[in-house]
């Protein structure tokens, strides 16, 4: 299973692709701050589905739960323990 470093790297790539080369810490807000757009949330979701086996159709989706690297990591941990 991938960990926090991979999530950080993935988010960094998303930000760079949208022209944001600013500093990134694990608790930075990504979507609510506007650094990423709502359509970018899809990239995060697909990344989580493919790499962590999270099924959002099953657990429901809340934008706030993927708003930072820390939150995304917590979601992967919670899903892993539930399984």
């Amino acid at each position, binding site marked *: 299973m991938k960990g926090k470093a991979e999530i950080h790297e993935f988010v960094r790539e998303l930000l760079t692709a949208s022209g944001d080369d600013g500093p990134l810490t694990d608790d930075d807000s990504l979507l609510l701050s506007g650094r990423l757009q709502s*359509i970018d949330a899809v990239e995060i979701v697909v990344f989580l589905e493919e790499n962590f086996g999270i099924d959002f159709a099953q657990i429901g989706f*809340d934008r706030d739960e993927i708003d930072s690297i820390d939150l995304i990591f917590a979601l992967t941990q919670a899903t892993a323990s539930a399984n």
Partner: protein
Amino acid sequence: MQDNEAQGAIEKILYMHPGVREAAAVDDGRDGFVAFVVPDQSFLDGISGRGSAGTTLLGKWQKTFDLSQLSKEAASAPVGLNTIGWNSSYTRQQIPVEEIKEWVENTVEDILLLSPTSVYEIGCGTGMLLMRIAPRCERYVGVDFSPVVLSRVREQLQTTPAIAERVEIMERRADDFDGLDENTFDTVVINSVVQYFPSAAYLTGVLENAIRIVRPGGHVYVGDVRSLPLLHAFAASVELFQASDETNGGELRDRIRRRVEREQELVLSPAYFLSLRERFPKLSRVEIRPIRGRADNEMSRYRYEAILHIDRESGASTVDEFLDCAERKFSLDEIRSMLAQNPNKRIGIKRIQNARIARDLAALEAVLDTDAELTMGEIRHTLDEAAEKGIHPQDILDLETQGWGFSVVLSWAACRPDGSYDACFVPADSMQEAAMPAIGWPEPDASEFACTANAPGKGRLRKELVEHLAAHCSQNLPLEMVPHDYMLVDKLTLTPNGEIDSRALLGARTASCRS
């Protein structure tokens, strides 16, 4: 070398670049040559590294809508008013429900004025329009590309059998018209949907079919369309709203530029819809109207509806002249007096300053003109005066219900970058076709038709193409012939004689630089 020889030589070099589909070099009479280029779509797709960027973008939007309906709130949203996912660009929070309600009800009212009996709605979403309009129709077909969203509509229809019996729901993409015959419906509705289309070309394909399936006398209603002439003003207003008082003018300019460049949605000039008349002979008339309502949000400020009339006798305009509000500075009271003094005359007024966005435009101007060191706090301080200017479009529309005996129609067909609008007051008893009087509205000049849509998700690619072209020309042309600027356009505007319309192209560039 003569100017036209030089132009020919520059164009020859431009055409050698694989990113160029069409090209024209025009001497601007001051700084030298400007290159106008219609980009090659497959080249852009190639440098994006994806096989089909259009499909990718559509797929992402579909997943975005699917996800929006997987939240806990979506499951308990009220019938016909599921506002989940309707987030404000300013606050990034959900737009207040009362504002969405006003917008939906006004939209429904506008569509019902078209007297629909059989409707095909593309992108019916969670059914906000469907649940209100279907009860007034014999047949209502709602299609959407998001299966999760459609499941919400089906849930609502289960609780309303009287509506359900005349409604059909289908999961399909907007461009899928499989099995739909010509002249099947009297109304096609595409509301708040085209911004998620990957390109203007995709939209044109959808509209071609939409027009085909509508019977003579019917309509295609395209609502909640984001305005291209006002895209920079919109970006400025959002960035101004979000900036802290310490942000300086230079930073804000960068953010505005980046927001426009990163735009993921399709943004269209009203000229796009006007230009369809040439392409589709079944289109007899196109109306462009700003959104109605009092709510102050991005829909009311920056969006419009385009109503396409299909094979309908339009009749001649009876407005002799549009009085120029920009010159004569009419107040609302002066307009009222005008109505009182001319009870039987059609009155047209053009270039009415738009109070909804006066502050945003002043902000854009202030940011472009001011010193980079000026802070947002200082800029904001200068804007309050601008907020008082102009007339709110709804104040003009409300004159209809204040006993003056006139029906009121507004138009944004002129595509002015200052967001000003035109109004026509038609004596109520002289109206043959209550909702839709034929009016010869002011329209834009040829330059507006050179670039009628943005390229969603491709801002950076287009910038990259311009850099490639500049390097290519520098390598292959003598210094004095290298264009000093490159502008990507949808098409090269032609004169009636079929020659490149240099004046229109340079006009489009001036408008773009001003933005």
